[in-house]
Each structure stands twice: as C-alpha cells, then as structure tokens.
C-alpha cells in the first residue's frame, strides 16, 4: 500500500478494500498523478450532437505550472453539460477559458484550440469583448454590482448603449422571471442589489447572465453558497433553460449533476478523464475510476 493512496483514502474499510483492488493494476488516476497522460474516454453519443463549443487539445499554464493538459471536449448545443472532478482539477479554469476570463490574469498562457460555433476563440485578432457578449457567466460566489437590481440585470444592455426604456423594462422583467426572482424583487427593482440575500443575489447574477440572451451559459458552482431551497430554485431554473440555452455547469454535487445535466465530464488533475451522457455515466461508467469518484469512494 503506497503512502499516497493512503492519504487519499481515509474512508471506511469497504472503500479501502475497493481501492485496494483498483491498485492491483495501478489506478489510471494514480498514473495521472504521476504525470502520465491518457486520452479521455468519450461516449460516442456526444458526437451525434451539434457542438456549441468545441475544445481541442487545450493546454493552460499559470506561470510555469500547467493546469490543463490537452483537454478535448465538445459541449453539445442546447444541452446541459456538467463538469465534475475533485477540487483543484481545473474545472473553473476550463470554464473561464471558454469566455477568456483567464486573460485577466497576467501569468496565464494557453495552447490549443477552442471554437464557438466554428468561430475560433483564441485566434489572433479575435474581438474578446464581442466574444464575451455571446456568453453569459454565473460565478461561484454571487457578484452583484453596486447598483440597483434593475441596473444589475440590464447591465449587458447598458454597456451596449441601449437606452430605450421599453426594451430595458421588458428585458429586465423577462430575465428576472427567467431567474425566478421576479416575484421577490418586482417591488424593489430600484433598490440596491447588495440588499438581496445571498441566494437572491445568485439568482440575480443568473438573470444578468441571461439578459442579453447569450448563446452559451457558463455556470461555476452556482449553488455552492446556497441553501437547499435556493439550490432547488436554481436547479429548476436550469431545467427551464434547457433546450433554449447551451449550459456548461461546474458542480461538486453529484446528485445535482445527475439531476440537471444531460452530459457529464469527469476531470482529474487537469485532464479530461471520462465524458458521456449523464444517465449512462452515473449508472454504468466506462471507467472504474469514474465510478469510484461518483460514489464518493475517492476524492
């Protein structure tokens, strides 16, 4: 028994037995940790879908440490795709690479290809601002702006210079309804958004993200700061948005991933390990390691 494995497995006796068995032909995850690279195991069902975002051999470095290793995946159009994996495996990094938010960090360097409906995201001369306008993002922690609820929601339109009151009112109501926040906030639209509760703030951020009707919605653990009721509301929301929006969501909650997503990708230490349709991946994963992770025996 190696020390490494021991440290990863403080669990019950049965878990120890399981991983003990996996160890006999050295776990793939163990070998990833030792620096090997494996091609992802991908469910062929995905190839039948149209890709909204397609990522090919994408690498990313923070300074000299590499955070993503040759990641390849196609995010299917108008479907919900979940990214799961242990903490620090690069889910947020991958998500933020899609709308090039990592550009804000000086030390970041990337290599590889990424396309949004065939338009390259990382090619030279791409207008990053135009690109980001096609995407909406909900961050891990709610980040409302220091302004009124109304102004928060229509922020993407404001920066586009839209002044028409009628359009703005309409978008505001539609987005807030979409984010299941309208009933709670319609009487206080012009009060500060910072006066909302955490869960309401998170839904406000969702409303802001869908206000400009983006082509793809990126969500980074949108429920990590929320109680079960608010979480339920967000999940309902994702359910409603399914079929209208392409959604890429990071989550630590396996049940949530199973509930809301159509496809699930499992990442480990910057590598894409397995990617497939959610029901199949959760019931009968192709890799033993994925099963261990999902069932909580690992990570």
């Amino acid at each position, binding site marked *: 028994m190696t020390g490494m494995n021991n440290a990863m497995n403080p669990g019950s006796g049965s878990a120890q037995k399981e991983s003990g068995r996996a160890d006999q032909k050295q776990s793939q995850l163990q070998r990833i940790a030792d620096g090997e690279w494996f091609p992802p195991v991908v469910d062929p069902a995905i190839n039948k879908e149209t890709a909204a975002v397609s990522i090919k051999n994408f690498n990313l470095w923070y300074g000299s440490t590499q955070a993503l290793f040759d990641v390849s995946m196609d995010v299917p159009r108008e479907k919900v795709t979940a990214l799961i994996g242990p903490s620090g495996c690069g889910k947020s990094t991958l998500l933020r690479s899609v709308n090039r938010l990592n550009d804000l960090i*000086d030390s970041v360097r990337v290599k590889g290809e990424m396309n949004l409906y065939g338009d390259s995201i990382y090619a030279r001369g791409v207008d990053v601002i135009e690109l980001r306008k096609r995407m909406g993002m909900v961050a891990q922690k709610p980040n409302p702006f220091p302004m009124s609820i109304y102004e928060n929601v229509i922020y993407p339109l404001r920066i586009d210079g839209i002044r028409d009151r009628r359009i703005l009112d309409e978008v505001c109501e539609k987005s807030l309804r979409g984010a299941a926040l309208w009933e709670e906030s319609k009487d206080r639209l012009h009060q500060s958004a910072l006066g909302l509760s955490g869960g309401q703030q998170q839904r406000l951020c969702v409303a802001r993200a869908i206000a400009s009707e983006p082509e793809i919605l990126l969500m980074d653990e949108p429920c990590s700061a929320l109680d079960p009721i608010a979480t339920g509301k967000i999940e309902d929301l994702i359910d409603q948005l399914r079929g209208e929006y392409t959604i890429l969501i990071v989550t630590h909650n396996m049940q949530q991933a199973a509930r809301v997503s159509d496809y699930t990708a499992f990442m480990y230490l910057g590598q894409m390990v397995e990617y497939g349709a959610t029901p199949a991946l959760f019931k009968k994963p192709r890799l033993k390691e994925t099963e261990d992770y999902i069932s909580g025996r690992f990570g």
Partner: protein
Amino acid sequence: MNTEQKTNRKKSARSWRRQSGGTSIASLGQPMVWLAGGMLALSLVMIIALLLLVVVRGMGTFWPGDIVSFTTVTGETVAGEITRSSSFKPRPELVDNLPEHEQAKARQMLAGNDGISERVLVRTGNYELDNNHFTWVNDFTVADTDYPQWLVVMERLTWGRFYGVPREFHVDGNLVAEGPSATWEQFEQHHRQVRQRWQQRRQLESHDVGKINHAQEQARLELRSAELALQEARNQFGARSDQYRQAQLELDQAESLFAGKDEELNRRYDEIRARIAELNRENDRYQITLETANGQLKVMGLSEVVRAYPANQLNLLDRIGIYLDRWCEFLLDDPREANSEGGVFPAIFGTVVMTLIMVVFVVPFGVLAALYLREYAKAGPLVSIIRIAVNNLAGVPSIVYGVFGLGFFCYLMGGTIDQLFFSEKLPNPTFGTGGILWASLTLALLSLPVVIVATEEALAAVPGSMREGSYASGASKWQTIQRIVLPRAMPGIMTGMILAMARGAGEVAPLMLVGAVKLAPELPVDGIAPFFHLERSFMHLGFHIYDLGFQSQNSEAAIPMVFSTTLLLILIITMLNIGAIWLRNRLRRKFIVSAF
C-alpha cells in the same frame, strides 16, 4: 498509527504548557491593554486640552467686560478693561520709587505675600492721547478701585478703543446736551443713523467707485492694445504700409471712443463723489465730547464710532447682545486697524474658495493618476518607483511646494499667460504674480499624493469578482472602470479628498509665497464680470493668524483675535470635512453589502 506514542506526546505538550503557562508577560496580555489604552488616553487628553484652550480663549475675546478705574498711590487714574493678570516678584526699585509714606504699606503688603505681587494688564485705549494701548497695574500701587457708572467704551475705526465719560453733545457745533446721561441719550439717538450713512458711503466707495474704476481701466486697456497694434504694424510692415494706416485708423477710433467713455465715466464718478461728500457732511454734524479718566477732553465725530456701550451699566442680556454683535462683525465684516479689529470675512471667503478650487483640481488629477497606476500600468519596477516617489512627495516640506509654485506657476506659467493675453497691462503682472489660482494649484500639488494613495487603495479594494462579472458581461476595460470600479471605490476616493482638504486648508507656509496677503482689497469672486477673478491675491485665515500673531503693532490686542481666528479656522475646516463626510456617507449607503 502508534496510538500510545500519540497520547504520550499530547500529554507532555499539555504538561509543558501547564508548567510554563502564565509566567511570561507577553502571555498575560493585560499590560499591553493598559499600555495601548493609556497611549490613546494620553493623545485624547492632549487633543482635548488643545481644543479647550482654543475654544475657551477664542470664545472669550468678544465678551464685554466691566471697566475698572484704578487710582494709584501716586494719584494717577488708570481706567480700562482688565485683559489678564499675572504674579511677579517686583524689583526693590519699584517700591523705592513710590512716595515715602506709601512705601511702608507696599512693603508690608509684599511681605504678607512672600514678596510676590499680583499685577493686571489694563486695556486703557486712548492711544492718541497717551501713546499706550495697555498698562500694567501692580496691586501694591493701587490706592482705590472703582467701577464708574458712566465710563463708556468706544470702538472706533482708527486708534483702537476709547474709554471716557460722555460730557457734551454737539449738533452743527451747537451744544444740545450736557452731562453724561443726556449726552449718552443723544448719542444713542443719532449713532445708528450716522452708522447707516457711513455704511452707505462705504458701499458707494467700494462698489460703485470700484465699478467705474474697472470700466475706466478696461477702456484704457483697449486704447493701449490699439497702440500696441499700431506699434506692431509699424515694426512688421513699415510706416507706409496699408496695415499701418489701418491700425492708425483703429487707434484714432479707439481714442475718440476712449475720450467719450472717459468723459462719461468721469461724470459718473463726480456724481458719486458728490453723494459721498453729502453723506460725510451730514455725518460730520454730530459730535460727542468725552472726558478720559485723567480729565482730558476728546471731541469725536459720531461716524468714527463703530460701537459704544456704558460697560458698567450693562445687564447680562445687553452683554450677550454685544457679544453676538461682535461675533457677527467678526464673521461678516472686513478687518480694520491692521487686522487687529473688525472682521475676517475676506479671510473666511478666501480660505473656503481656495480649498474648493484646490479640491476641484486635485481630485480629478489624483484619481486619474491612480487609475493609470492601478488599472492600466503593468506592474513592474517602473510603477513601483513611481509609487514610492509619489509617497515620498507627501513628505516634502510644504514651503518647498511654495517655492515651486512661485517659480513655476507664478513666474513661468503666469508670466507666459500675461505675455500672451494681458500684454496691454504689462509691466503690471496679472497672472504673473501670486494669486488664488496659483495658491490652489500649489496646494493641489501638495495634497496630490494623499489623493493618489487613497484612490489606489480604494481601487485595490474593489473585489476582483465584480470586475470579472463586468468583463464576463462583455464590458470593455473603461466601461468596467467607469460603471463598476469607480462607483464602488467612490467612498474611498472621497476619504482621500477629505484628507487632502484637511491637509490643504490648514497649510500656510507655501501660501505666503503664492498669493496670500495681509489685506486684499477685493474678493476673488464678486459681481463684476467675469465674476471669478482667480488672478487676485486673497486673504487666508491661516495666514491671518500668522499675521496677527507676529506682525501686529498692537500685539496685546491681537492675541485674543489670534485665538478667535484659530477657533474659526478649526471650525471651518471641520465644517468642510463634515460636508465631505456627509457626501461620502450618502454614497456609501448605496453600497452597503448585505451579509449572508
């Protein structure tokens, strides 16, 4: 795991703590609390003592006290208001100079007091009669102390206060009243009207005559620029050129225009002078004769008197009335008597206007600089060096800024502006000398580091998640800064502004070089177009204090004014700050972050 070993280690650690715990002073904590608390208390005591001193002495200046009349053993009478007292050990000659029969009594009195004498400083006024504003009176020379009913205080436009008993009242040289109470009655009856006429006269002199002077100056300058144009034309094109002839024509026109204007203005001027003379004549009809405590007589025109009251007859209400009246005068009137009497309104105005102009310059400047440093510049050695340099600027002695302001703003920039736009006034400088604009700019430079540092901190405190939210919504860098970062940093920027204001409003040294003056004839903002005259020199409360305290002829009379002016300066700076803090809190209320 070896559980036995684990528990062993735990046990030993615990017993070790038990053994040594509580023996070291640092672990107790209590002494540090006392030390820190004590230091805070000490600073508080010092600040409160300073404020108390200023408040007590500043508030007391205008209180009308009684008039004491001392009769000394040598038979002199000293009458006036007691300003302060002190103890001292008189030299023997002081007693030896007394008349023989009084020496023994004085010695006995001194002996009873361990050789220490109490003396009081009496404000005796009547400067034109005895060349003294103040006189010390020693207790062992006092034969009699009295509070005469009819000694009155006269505050005058010149020569300081007068203390005397009203004797006669003349109108047109005819005696209309005799004896103190009848004279006083007459005085009170006429004084108010005389003062109103005097005020009218001053209004005419300063406002109407000022306007005419201004117009005349304007006309003269137009003529002068026509002359300059002629000269220029001759130099450039020769005396026989078309341009020269054209300029000659224009000059002729300007001359006839000027002559017309001049005549009109002179006519108006003479009119005003006539009205002033009329008012003066009317005022000169009333005269009061007073008798000093020493029996000297003094005839005084009523227009000379600013305020008069029989000090020893006043009840509390009267005194409060006079006290408030004096405060009003202090706050709203111009100074007189080399600033040691009258008001400080021009100084208040100058201080406030200068501070506001400074803020108008320093805030946008500082905020933009900080924005560049924090948001745009790539972090690196150059930025670090600039940041250190900015921080060091805050430590440069303020007089250095004054020298810089004089050399750069007044002489270089002002001189250039004069040459370009005010050449007809040369060699008299317009902007090429100290003025409120240059003073504000100098102070803006001085307080710039404060604003930059505060703004940078405020910008750095804007959460990265907010910026990311904005970028993720498709905002450009400037949109993010403008809509998210700046509003969010605004309270912090306002704090910087408040600090800068406090720093700038209280600064005096550099102002002496760049435009603050002892007495400014005109305010920097007035009713004559273009309303803002930023080239004018101005009065400043801080400089006023310096001037009162160190440059005054009548320093004993000036000292109380120093305290009153200091109190006022503190109040004004406090008010400016409270205004800014109120503004900041209003902004901040918009950004309260809810806790969840």
